């Protein structure tokens, strides 16, 4: 069961803040983050990695990018 975060249209640091909030709320599992800028993609991936999560998948979806991060 993965949680989904829609950070499209939001500029940094919002996508990172939303991702970190979710990471704090769950101890592990899978989180999908939808972003629409390369900067947000890089920042979310960097933030997740720094929290010990792995970036499992990055898939383009139309104008957006779905980042799947995983732990445990």
């Amino acid at each position, binding site marked *: 069961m993965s949680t989904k975060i829609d950070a*499209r249209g*939001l500029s940094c*640091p919002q996508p990172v*803040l939303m991702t970190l909030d979710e990471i704090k709320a769950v101890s592990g599992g899978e989180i999908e983050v939808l972003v629409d800028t*390369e900067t947000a993609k890089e920042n979310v991936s*960097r933030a997740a990695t*720094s929290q010990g999560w792995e970036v499992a998948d*990055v898939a*383009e979806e139309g*104008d957006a990018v779905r980042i799947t991060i995983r732990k445990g």
Partner: protein
Amino acid sequence: MRLKNVFASWGGIIGVGLLIGILAPLLQKWGNPGNMGICVACFERDIAGALGLHRAGVVQYIRPEIIGFVLGSLIAAYLFKEFRPRLGSAPIVRFVLGAFAMIGALVFLGCPWRAALRLAGGDGNAILGILGLIFGIWIGTLFLKNGYNLGRTQATDTAAGWMLPLMMLGLLALLIIFPQIEGQDKNGVLFYSLKGPGAMHAPLLISLVIGLTVGFLAQRSRFCTMGAIRDFLLFRQTHLLMGFVALICAAFVTNLILGQFHPGFEGQPVAHTMHVWNFAGMALAGLAFALAGGCPGRQLFLSGEGDGDAAVFVLGMIVGAAFAHNFGLASSPKGVGPYGIPAVIIGIVVCLFIGFTMRKRSTP
């Protein structure tokens, strides 16, 4: 999948910071004012003066570096398929934040870029400015932690994303059609400075090429002086901070080599020694940049990527510069302007109002 962006790595951001730190003192050597190889706020203020939006005779010049920043970022964004026209995230709020960011920066006499370059040139007053900047950004992070948000952007037409880049091309055309004539303070529609910082500039081509280079690399690396401090305070992330620190270190060493390092507080170029207002001016600027999501350089680079909201912030800064000089808000080497202190207080109140009222919305 797209190619991995090498500039998004640690090496990338540090490399870009080092390069800017070398190029800025060189621009000073080639003609730009003291500790002002690059200053986004000062240069936008000079553009406002050249267009006659304010009539402070000593600060009037269409700075090619600013044009280069936007167009260099535009080129990078197109090359790497990152040009994405977008707008609609509270543009009027961004305009107001831009105006007050400029007013705060002109009370200190420099944006975060110049604060770093002033420090690297030995100007002790910059310490107060940088402390103020950190304080202002820290206030901004408190708002961010409590749900402050300017809302989502919408995708828009390509033409909208081109507006600021086109304005920059227009400014470049004016600069070429109406070049500076020796001893004259006006040619055609453009005003020029005969003395003061506005009269000091590197040759057009050098300024433009360096501007384009920095714009290109900063777009790739997401270089941001405000983000450097914000990300550290907010997430303890040091990625952008490494770039900012690299800039200061490289500028310090380059200044030493070029004989441009002069430590002290008194008599520094385009600077004053009113510590409280150096701190408070930059605190206002830092808060406004944090609430708008980027330092003045980053706002130019985002504009080049098609971000119409960042473009509105830039226009706010230019209008803010006009007010700053028309109303006597801007400082001079003698000290703060006659109305600089109330302007800083009003600016902080306005930013706090924005910070407390713009909240997270539940619907996307």
